[in-house]
């Protein structure tokens, strides 16, 4: 169990898809101008990546390595279609807000990367936890970016007005340029955080 916890935790902190691996930055910029869309996208990706890792892991002995990429894509596309239909039925507003990026989950680098580097080599349960951890890391990163961008760029969080009318929001935070600068600073902050945590862990190990 402890092992699974390690696999899960790795995806959130030490190998965070956005802040450390720097994969799938395009959606991280495109859907994070508000916290709500960021959270929806994060949860969708979390679901897709976990399910896909299970499928890939289950079929890893059946699939010929030469055709593995089309097989992965087919599997991801199936799961994404499910997510799309569910969102369209139960949350049409969010579905419209995410637009093309929901369908683009099919080609997110992070999902293919986990299928290729983890799920195709490991058993089902660890693969699920890897996907779940990576998905959670992606979701956490997106929500952090989304909250900061929405707060600075629109004065609200999850659509709730936080800053009053005095706040003259800079448009740059809603635009991709502000997103890029913010992600840069968050990567630096993440680095400080993880270095600090590693140092603490090392100290605890010595003591």
């Amino acid at each position: 169990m402890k092992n699974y916890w390690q696999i899960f935790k790795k995806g959130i902190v030490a190998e965070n898809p956005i802040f450390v691996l720097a994969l799938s930055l395009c959606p991280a910029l495109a859907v994070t101008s508000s916290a709500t869309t960021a959270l929806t996208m994060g949860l969708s990706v979390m679901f897709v990546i976990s399910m896909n890792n299970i499928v890939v892991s289950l079929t890893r002995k059946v699939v010929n390595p030469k055709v593995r990429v089309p097989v992965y894509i087919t599997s991801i596309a199936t799961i994404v279609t499910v997510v799309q239909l569910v969102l369209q039925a139960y949350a049409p507003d969010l579905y419209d807000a995410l637009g093309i990026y929901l369908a683009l989950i099919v080609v997110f680098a992070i999902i293919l990367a986990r299928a290729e580097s983890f799920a195709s080599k490991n058993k089902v349960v660890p693969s699920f936890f890897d996907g779940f951890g990576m998905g959670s890391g992606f979701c956490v990163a997106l929500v952090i970016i989304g909250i900061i961008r929405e707060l600075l760029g629109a004065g609200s969080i999850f659509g709730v007005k936080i800053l009053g009318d005095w706040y003259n929001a800079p448009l740059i935070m809603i635009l991709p340029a502000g997103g890029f600068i913010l992600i840069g600073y968050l990567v630096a902050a993440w680095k400080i955080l993880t270095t600090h945590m590693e140092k603490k862990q090392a100290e605890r190990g010595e003591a």
Partner: protein
Amino acid sequence: MAEVKSNKELFNVSVSPHIRSEESVSKIMWTVNLTLAPAALFGVYHFGLNALMIILLGIVSAVFFEWAVEKIRKKPITIKDGSAFLTGLLLAMCLPPTLPAWMAIVGSFIAIVVAKHAMGGIGSNIFNPAHIGRAALMVSWPVAMTTWSKMTTSVPDVVSSATPLNILKQQGYDALISTFGSASNMYQAMFLGNRSGSIGETCTVLLVLGGLFLIYKKYINWQVPVVMIGTVGILTWIFGPAGFLTGDPLFHMMAGGLIIGAFFMATDMVTIPITIKGQIIFAFGAGVLTTLIRLKGGYPEGVCYAILLMNCLTPLIDRFCQPKKFGVRG
């Protein structure tokens, strides 16, 4: 022991360089600040108190952010060398005089913290910090950044709320002439600075004098401003409003931020190519881009973006303009 000491005095052995220049970063920066001061003071006289507020807040906040970042990064504090002062001053001089003054602080923050220190501090920044600050403000508050005031002083009949380039873009050349009365009136106003525009960009004569002093002191190469302004002049003359060779180069050369950009921004030692050849390519490219944005783009003025875009190309230009090694064939 005593003998050795006296020998050392007699035959002072040291590694090269043996002759050192008196120049230093700090001396150059303060000289540039001084050469900019007349145009900035003219801006204050011309546009009034809010312009003064913007300049002061821009400078003070830029110096403060420089101090704060160096404190956090545990680097030597270099606020006395004038580079942060210069960034704040240049930024403020590129802002419209009616801008809410606190926006200058945001601009200084972007310029110093994001564009300068995130890239590694003085000497390591890819882009001109002051122009990055201005571009970020332009993107953040487009309405405030394109609202131009009436002038507070000077000749009443040239009062206009839009900048000359704005009038040219929206209403055409004839409307531009009629706002000033006549063509010679317009040239005179553009030359002396009796027009609307950013705080420090209006007074052509003071900026040119400041720039000439820098050229005389050899702090900047004359090729850069000459090529950049010349390119804009020639291209705007060729691609005039009524067909080929009907443009008004004199107007375009004095309009907008071209003079301050060409003399003080495009000559920033850090962000332009090292060799003269490279600098000429840089200046030419900036001139072409400025003309393109002015004549074909959505914005009335393009100096800021032109210089920033050429800053991106600086490493590439440097690569193709490496001087030949002495004594090596080919």
